[in-house]
């Protein structure tokens, strides 16, 4: 893939172009992995954070076609990733990096809110994916605002079973979310 400008990358991300997304992963993720793993984190932490940062950036470029990053895309992504890592660490009080003040980083306030929204989104979907197949099907239809009778019809269950199962599945989902150490901060 030819070298793309920051503008082209942002526009490609706004259109969810597969090649551009691959480019983001190839070009920018390794630096964040090195940063996180050198501070006691795991590669999986870095990958989670990177996904949250890209979701937030996508939301920004979709909502504002003229969205610009003055510091450069690489600096911006790295700063946002560091900010997310620092935020996670501060919540769990694992480290207190005195020399690093998130206020100094090039992460505007408005994307911090979107990052928080992305974390909520990720936590929900991660917990939903861990449920059994039946729960995911029932809740998938429930969240599409389908009634108990409609869900029963589509999945070939009785309405009584769907009603009971839906409650159990929602409880399991909420419990899984509440068990996550991030939950109280989201």
């Amino acid at each position: 893939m030819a070298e793309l400008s920051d503008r082209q990358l942002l526009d490609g991300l706004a259109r969810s172009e597969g090649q551009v997304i691959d480019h983001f992963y190839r070009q920018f993720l390794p630096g964040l992995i090195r940063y996180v793993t050198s501070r006691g984190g795991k590669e999986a932490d870095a990958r989670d954070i990177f996904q949250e940062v890209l979701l937030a950036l996508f939301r920004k470029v979709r909502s504002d076609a003229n969205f610009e990053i003055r510091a450069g895309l690489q600096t911006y992504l790295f700063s946002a990733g560091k900010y997310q890592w620092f935020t996670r660490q501060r919540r769990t009080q694992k480290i207190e990096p005195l020399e690093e003040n998130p206020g100094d980083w090039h992460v505007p306030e408005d994307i911090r809110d979107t990052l928080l929204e992305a974390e909520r989104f990720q936590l929900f979907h991660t917990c939903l994916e861990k449920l059994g197949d039946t729960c995911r099907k029932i809740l998938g239809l429930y969240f599409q605002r389908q009634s108990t009778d409609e869900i029963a019809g589509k999945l070939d269950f009785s309405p009584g079973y769907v009603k009971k199962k839906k409650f159990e599945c929602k409880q399991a989902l909420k419990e899984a979310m509440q068990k996550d150490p991030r939950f109280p901060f989201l």
Partner: protein
Amino acid sequence: MQQQQDETIEKYMTGAMNNDERRAFEEQMAGDPELAEAIRVEKWMQAAAADQEWIALRRQLQQADQRRAGTKRPFLRPVWIWTSAAAAILLLAVWSILHIGRPASPPDYTAYFEPYPLVLQQRGETSDRPGLQEAYRSGDFQKAVPLLEQWAGQDPGDITPVFYLGIAQLADNHPEKATGYLQKAAASETAFAEQAGWYLALAWLGSGRQEEAVTQLQAIIRARSYQWEKARELLAVIES
């Protein structure tokens, strides 16, 4: 009690309460932090589940991450390259001595295969396609395949028959025919994509394409997606 509260919250969230009920519920919420928290979590879940743009992008990001993980090569210092090469040669020599004349065969995919239940999205679909449900559920996949092909031909944009064609071909011992259908279903942004990923791993395995099967199984395990525990078990068997 909890279930009743959950139903009341649902009624509130879907706007099914009348004005008096809503006002009374909101007053109750103002004085009950636990109820207010339950509403906050319900709104959170509803918003996350409804965000189609992020759901589609998240899937793409996961796939890009899997592709990156599948192609990356660990950084090795030169001394480790030679040490690793020497160790690999030694291991190969030991392995050859132990296994000479006994070629290793991949695990049988059928031991891990169970046909995915036929879930028809709309009730009318069954009556529109007489025989499919009966053939599929009775395990007569030879009969189910042409009916599914007919359905796929009628609705080229519908991924449901494509997914089930993959399953039916696998069930009928044609894993190589199943791969194309399952690749298409796995790449789709539908409810079947995740399930198709697991069956695709089995199809690769059955087609003798072990490297692709391993990559697919690793992706399933990493994403904790459909059948990830079985995927872990199968991967351990392949790698043993």
